């Protein structure tokens, strides 16, 4: 059964069957030929995978991202970041990282971040002489922060799959998000100096005070989201809906860049993106039911439990495993299938489940920019209108810096846990 499942999946992926359909069809194949299960389980598991309140955050985040892009919120955030760091060589690329960090504090999705920020910054970088693949790569890598800095859809998925606290994961993501952000900033600076990119980035920069004032309502959004969650006004799931409504109000009535006539299109586009992502989650729910019924989880679990002499080697194994998985498997599916298997083993090795969740998310977020399957690559390539393959070589720079950050995050648990421990102590 298990070998049949995996070979069918690889075969269907190779044929370029859409990911959701490939996952579901390989499950259908396995059920029909290698089990006594009724095929009724196909709609049943797909339905129930979607029938979960925390998952409602996904459509709302995607919607909020689209509203912010159309409503002028994203552009003002970019102007603000340019005002902040845009003066030096490579300043535009650095603005890209900074904007993504701010945007990440609003959006729970890296793809949404890529579209919202990339739509403005990729053309700007290309105009300032960055090669298109390089601009697309910097954008794709920076947008990875969308799921590391809270709020974050994968964190919600991990929390659902392992019954960990969403809010604790959110708090725990802040430190690692800053570490990766700084690593990307350093990388961008080195890269630009090595290759001579971005010498003219200081041109056309507006005064810092002006762009900050302009961006005031946009910058309030992360404040409202974070304040609302930690102030007990709404849950992380509800925060996603609130941010969509807020962005709508700011776009329509404050910045007035959004017209009511734009709304149907925004909802139509958001619905398609949501459908594509949620169908993958539905199919992954079916697939992981088959995996859960089999003895693979307990086999991997008991093998991993007995095979390492400490948490240090265990986490090394996990990181290598996730890196390989992240190359081929979509983040949500990887978390839904692997988190319930690996998290209990990690706990047995004395790793905090929140720390472990962050390791999984940072690693799989890197999977979004590693070929062959990387959703951020596809998204950035779409925005930049460049072939995905053209980004493979430049990707060496950001991937290296993320791997270094991941090593720090894995082996210095305090990066993840100190803020969480402080807030738990304060809340208790």
């Amino acid at each position, binding site marked *: 059964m298990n070998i049949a499942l995996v070979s069918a999946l690889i075969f269907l992926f190779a044929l370029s069957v859409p990911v959701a359909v490939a996952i579901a069809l390989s499950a259908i194949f396995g059920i029909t030929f290698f089990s006594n299960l009724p095929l009724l389980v196909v709609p049943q598991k797909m339905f129930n995978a979607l029938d979960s309140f925390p998952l409602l955050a996904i459509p709302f985040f995607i919607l909020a991202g689209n509203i912010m892009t159309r409503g002028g919120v994203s552009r003002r955030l970019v102007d603000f970041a340019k005002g902040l760091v845009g003066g030096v060589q490579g300043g535009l690329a650095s603005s890209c990282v900074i904007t993504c960090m701010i945007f990440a504090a609003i959006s729970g999705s890296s793809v949404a971040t890529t579209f919202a920020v990339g739509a403005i910054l990729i053309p700007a970088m290309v105009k300032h002489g960055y090669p298109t693949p390089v601009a697309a790569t910097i954008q794709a890598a920076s947008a990875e922060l969308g799921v590391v800095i809270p709020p974050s859809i994968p964190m919600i998925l991990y929390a659902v799959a392992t019954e960990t606290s969403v809010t604790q994961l959110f708090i725990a993501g802040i430190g690692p998000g800053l570490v990766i952000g700084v690593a990307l900033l350093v990388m961008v600076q080195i890269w630009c100096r090595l290759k001579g990119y971005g010498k003219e980035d200081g041109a056309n920069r507006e005064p810092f005070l002006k762009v900050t004032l302009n961006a005031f309502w946009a910058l309030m959004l992360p404040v409202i989201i974070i304040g609302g969650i930690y102030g007990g006004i709404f849950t992380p799931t509800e925060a996603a809906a609130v941010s969509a409504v807020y962005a709508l109000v700011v776009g329509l009535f404050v910045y007035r860049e959004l017209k009511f006539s734009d709304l149907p299109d925004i909802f139509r586009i958001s619905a398609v993106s949501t459908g594509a992502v949620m169908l993958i989650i539905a199919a992954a729910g079916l697939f992981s*039911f088959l995996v859960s019924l089999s003895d693979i989880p307990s086999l991997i679990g008991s093998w991993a439990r007995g095979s390492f002499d400490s948490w240090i080697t265990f986490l090394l194994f996990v990181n290598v495993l996730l890196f390989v998985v992240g190359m081929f498997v979509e983040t949500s599916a990887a978390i839904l299938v692997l988190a319930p298997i690996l998290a209990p083993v990690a706990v047995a090795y004395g790793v905090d489940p929140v720390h472990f969740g962050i390791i999984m998310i940072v690693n799989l977020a890197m999977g979004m920019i590693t070929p062959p399957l990387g959703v951020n690559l596809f998204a950035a390539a779409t925005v930049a209108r460049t072939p995905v393959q053209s980004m493979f070589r430049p990707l060496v720079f950001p991937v290296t810096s993320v791997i270094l950050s991941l090593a720090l995050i894995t082996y210095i648990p305090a990066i993840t846990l100190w803020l969480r421990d402080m807030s738990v102590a304060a*809340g208790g």
Partner: protein
Amino acid sequence: KELNIAITPPEESHYGAGAKAFKAKIEELSKGDVTVNIKANGVLGGEREVLEGMQIGSIEMAVTSTGAVGGFVPDTYVLDLPFLFKSYDSARTILDGPIGQGLLDKFEPQGLVALGWAENGFRHITNSKHPIKGPDDIKGMKIRTMENDIHIAAFNAAGAAPTPMSWNEVITALQQGTIDGQENPMSIFIANKIWDVQKYVTLSGHVYSPALVLMSKVTWDGLSDDEKAWVREAAKAAIQANRDYVSKNEEIGIKTLREHGIDVTEDFDRDGFVQAVQPAYEAFSEKYGSEVLDQIRDAQK
């Protein structure tokens, strides 16, 4: 034969205790012909999802609370009424007797074979504001409830603001003050270290929360008569182990809560609450009839 038993809590729990006792008993009775896999932590799905899975035959067995069961067998809603049972003894006796059996018989038309009543125990209220001694103390308090009409009607009647919320958001919602309190059996308080996020517990015992040992009818129909007898006997062992675990939890629970600085209210105005929740009884009787309700009341006179 291989049987998967789905439970949503971890293996170390009152359900896990039942599942483990079932596994040990049936593997002994069948001399290893029937093997059991305990699938804990909800890996096979949430409770409603597992009930559906048993209906279509994709999951063989489960130990499940009655939380989602009312959607399938509405007759069980009567058990959600507040202050229905006086004590553990009367709840267990009534459910093990003809009234309980009458309810179990209603499952078969839904494709589920109900093997007996296990339990979660009595539900108590926790909150972060002040001790709850009488109905006045609960006025306007945002209490998380399950998605259950009767529970919500009861808390509404008592003057609280019931807030249904999915369990994975509850602990953080309590911590952040999005809601003020929640209600659950003692074992859930302990398992979730409720003292991290709550200050007060009232041992209200407002609802006795039963649980069920269930088998898919598809699986049941595929068993020989011998195997069916083994399953019945193993289910009895499961229920006994589960009840022992709950009793032990109830005993040590109060002490554990106090050790962690929780203010535990044992002495509260039960009659006042019983009065306050009467509208929920009336609404219930109107909707579902009062036949079983009267039987349960008569049995406790």
